[in-house]
C-alpha cells in the first residue's frame, strides 16, 4: 500500500513538473547545450549566456513581444548521436530555432531540420557554405564563418609582417573533425595568393595529448601558428606552446579558441596570445547591469552565475540576442505574437541590426551591423583580433573589425554549396 502511495505521488509530481513549464511559455528556443565532458567548460559558459539573456527578456520585458520564452535544455556532451536524440526529443515542442554549438551536430541537423522546416543558426561555426541562402534555405551562419576567420587571421599576420607573407611558414593546429578541417581549403587558397607555406597538424579528440604536434612545431620553427581547437584541446595547446617557448603573439586562435578558460591554465606565460573574434569583449556594456539586476540578483542565473562577462558567455548572450531580435522581426512581419518555426525563418532572413539598435539593446558597439538577406545567410563576416593580457586577466581588442578576403571566399562558398546542391538535388531558390 505504502509503495503504491509513493508511486502515485511520484507520478503526480512528474506530471506536474512536465506540464507546468509548458503552460507558461509560448516561444520555445531549445538549448542543445553541453555542460559535461571535455568540452563542458566552454559549453557551460555559452549555455549560461544564452539562458540568462532569455531570462532577462522574460523578467524585464515579459518575453518577446509580450510572449514568454522557454529554453528547454538538452545535454549533448558535444556528441553527434546525443545531439540527434536531443533534436528529435525537443522538435515537437514548437522549437523555433536550433543553435547546437557544434559543427558535427550542425552537419547532422542541416538535412533533418530543413526537411522539418525548422531553422538552424550556427553562429560562426557549422557548414561554411551555408552562407549561400539560395541553397541552404533553413541554415544561417551570420555574423561570420570559419573562412572569414581564416582570412582575417591571415590578414592580421600579413599586417604584423609588414604586409608580406611570402616565404613565411604558417602551421595550423586543428581538431581532427569536420570543425577543424573547415578552414583548410581557404588557407590553401590564401597560401597560393600570399605565398606562405602551410603545414597541417591534426589533433585527435579530445586533444589532451599534443606532445608530438608541438615537438614538430619546435623542429619546424614556423613563423606563425594558427589554431582551430575547442574544449580541453585549447588549454593543452597553449600550455604546450609555452613549454616550447613559442612566442605567444605569433600564435592566433579562431574565435572558439580564445576564451578565458583556454588561457588561464597557462598562467602568465599565456600573455600575448591572440584570437579572432566577431564581437566585443568584457562586461563594460549597459546590458550587464540589467542582467545583474533582473537575473543574477533575483537568483535566476543559469549555472553558478560566475561566468558573466567572459568571452563565451558574451557569445551565448549575443546568440540569444540575435535569436530574440529575429523572433521580434518575425512577429512584426507576420503580425502575430505566437510565431511558428517557418515565420521564425522569415524573421532570421530579414534580420537587420544596426548600431542604433545595438545601443538600444544595451550593447553599443558590441558587434558589427548585421543585414541578412535571402541570398546571403552569412552576414557581414567581420572580425577583430583580441589579445590576452595575463596581468589584468582580460582580453583586449587590438584591431578594428575588418572584413575578410571576399574574392577568395565567395567562389569557395559558391563551389561548395553547388556541390551540396548537386548531391542532394536541391534547386537554387530565386532570391531576386
Amino acid at each position: 500500500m505504502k509503495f503504491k502511495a509513493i508511486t502515485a505521488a511520484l507520478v503526480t509530481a512528474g506530471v506536474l513538473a512536465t506540464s507546468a513549464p509548458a503552460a507558461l511559455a509560448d516561444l520555445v528556443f531549445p538549448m542543445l547545450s553541453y555542460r559535461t565532458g571535455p568540452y563542458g567548460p566552454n559549453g557551460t559558459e555559452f549555455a549560461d549566456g544564452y539562458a540568462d539573456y532569455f531570462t532577462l527578456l522574460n523578467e524585464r520585458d515579459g518575453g518577446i513581444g509580450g510572449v514568454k520564452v522557454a529554453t528547454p535544455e538538452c545535454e549533448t556532451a558535444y556528441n553527434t548521436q546525443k545531439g540527434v536524440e536531443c533534436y528529435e526529443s525537443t522538435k515537437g515542442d514548437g522549437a523555433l530555432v536550433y543553435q547546437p554549438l557544434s559543427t558535427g551536430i550542425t552537419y547532422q541537423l542541416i538535412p533533418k531540420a530543413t526537411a522539418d522546416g525548422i531553422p538552424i543558426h550556427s553562429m560562426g561555426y557549422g557548414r561554411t557554405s551555408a552562407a549561400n541562402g539560395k541553397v541552404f534555405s533553413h541554415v544561417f551562419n551570420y555574423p561570420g564563418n570559419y573562412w572569414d576567420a581564416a582570412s582575417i587571421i591571415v590578414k592580421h599576420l600579413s599586417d604584423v609582417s609588414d604586409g608580406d607573407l611570402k616565404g613565411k611558414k604558417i602551421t595550423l593546429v586543428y581538431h581532427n573533425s569536420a570543425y577543424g578541417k573547415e578552414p583548410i581549403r581557404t588557407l590553401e587558397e590564401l597560401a597560393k595568393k600570399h605565398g606562405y607555406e602551410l603545414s597541417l597538424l591534426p589533433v585527435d579528440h579530445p586533444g589532451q595529448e599534443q606532445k608530438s604536434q608541438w615537438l614538430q612545431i619546435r623542429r619546424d620553427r614556423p613563423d606563425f601558428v594558427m589554431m582551430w581547437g575547442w574544449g580541453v584541446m585549447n588549454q593543452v595547446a597553449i600550455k604546450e606552446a609555452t613549454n616550447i617557448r613559442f612566442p605567444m603573439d605569433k600564435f592566433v586562435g579562431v574565435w572558439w579558441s580564445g576564451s578565458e578558460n583556454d588561457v588561464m591554465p597557462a598562467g602568465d606565460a599565456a600573455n600575448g596570445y591572440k584570437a579572432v573574434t566577431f564581437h566585443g569583449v568584457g562586461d563594460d556594456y549597459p546590458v550587464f547591469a540589467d542582467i545583474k539586476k533582473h537575473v543574477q540578483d533575483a537568483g535566476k542565473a543559469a549555472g553558478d552565475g560566475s561566468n558573466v562577462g567572459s568571452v563565451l558567455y558574451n557569445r551565448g548572450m549575443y546568440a540569444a540576442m540575435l535569436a530574440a531580435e529575429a523572433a521580434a522581426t518575425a512577429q512584426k512581419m507576420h503580425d502575430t505574437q505566437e510565431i511558428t518555426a517557418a515565420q521564425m525563418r522569415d524573421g532570421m532572413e530579414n534580420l537587420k541590426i544596426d548600431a542604433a539598435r545595438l545601443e538600444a539593446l544595451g550593447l553599443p558597439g558590441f558587434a558589427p551591423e548585421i543585414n541578412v538577406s535571402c541570398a546571403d545567410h552569412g552576414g557581414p563576416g567581420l572580425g577583430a583580433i583580441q589579445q590576452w593580457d595575463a596581468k589584468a586577466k582580460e582580453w583586449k581588442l587590438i584591431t578594428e573589425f575588418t572584413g575578410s578576403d571576399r574574392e577568395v571566399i565567395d567562389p569557395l562558398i559558391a563551389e561548395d554549396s553547388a556541390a551540396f546542391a548537386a548531391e542532394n538535388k536541391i534547386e537554387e531558390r530565386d532570391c531576386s
Partner: protein
Amino acid sequence: MFYREAGDFKTSYASDQQTFPIKLDRYFVWGVLAIAFLVIPFVINDYWEKSVLVPFLVWAMAALGLNILTGYCGQVSLGTGGFMAVGAYACYKLMVAFPEMNMFLVVILAGLITAMVGIAFGLPSLRIKGFYLAVATLAAQFFLVWLFNKVPWFYNYSASGQISAPERTVFDIAVTGPNAPPWATYLFCLILVVVFAYVARNLTRGRTGRSWMAIRDMDIAAEIIGVPPLQAKLSAFAISSFYIGMSGAMFFAIYLGSAEPTEAFGIDKSFLVLFMVIVGGLGSILGSFLGAAFMILIPVLLKNIMVGVLGWPADLAAHIEFLLIGALIMIFLIAEPHGLAQLWRVTKEKLRLWPFPH
C-alpha cells in the same frame, strides 16, 4: 509450470532440429516478431525511430557480430569501431557510385567488404591469443580510423572530411536521407537484423558454430580432434566483421545520415559493443539483444525520467546518468557474471519448477 519442455513430442527429425525446438520459445519469438512487424510500424514516430528503435537495432547487429567472434570463438576484439567504419565508408562509396542500387544490396555488400578487411586483420589471431590479440585488434581500430581521415578518396574529397548519406530507396521508398519515413527506416533495419539473427542462431548451432566453440574452449584439444584452427578462426573473423560492417553501414546511412571517422567510430564504440556483449552474455544470441538494449535504452530512459519527468537540470542528470549506469553494470555483473542471458536462463528454470522449487 509456466515454462515446460515436457509433452512437446517430436515425430520427425526436421521438427526436432528446427531453430526453436521448444514450443513456448517458438510462441514467444513469433509474438515478439508479430509486434515488431505488425504493430510498431504503425505507431512509430520520429523520436522513437531516431532515439530508440533504430539505434537499438543497429547496435544489436554489432553486438551479434562481436558475440560471434568473442562469445563463440573466444577471440577478444577491440577493433569493432574500426570495422564499423569500414562498413560505413564502403556503404558510402557504394551509394555514391551506384545510385540506383537497392539499399539492402548496398548494406550486404558493405558487410562483405568489411568481412575481407576482417580476415586480413584476423590473420594475427593464428599466432597470438588473449590480451595480445586484443592489442593487435586495437591496432586495427586506430589504423582504420586514421586511414579514413587521411585518404580523401574515401570521403570523396569533401572539405570537412564528413560523409553524408544521399537519399536512396528500396522499391521506391526512401530509407536514407531526411525525407525517409520512420516506419521505412525501422523496417529496413528490422528485416536485416531479424534475417541475420536467424542466420547467426543457426550458424552457431551447426558445424561452424561447434568448431568455433571448440576453439574457444581449448584450441589445442580442438586441433587434435580435427577442428582446423585456421578455418575456424578466420571464418569467425569474417562472419563477425560481416555483421559489424552491416551494422556500421546502417549506423551511418540509416541512423545518423552523416559521420566523421574520429567521432562516430572511435575506440569508445569498440568498448561499447564489448560491454554490450559482456553485459548481455557471451556466447548467446539473445544476450546480444539484451546487452544492446541495456546499453542503448537505459541511458535514454534515465535521461527522460530525470529531465523530462523530474525536471532536473540537464547537466546534473547527465552526471547522475554516468553514475547510475556504471552502478547498474556492476550490480548486474555481480548478481550474474554470465550476463543478462544467464539471468533469463535462471528465470526459465524457476518458471519451469514453480510452484515446487524442490
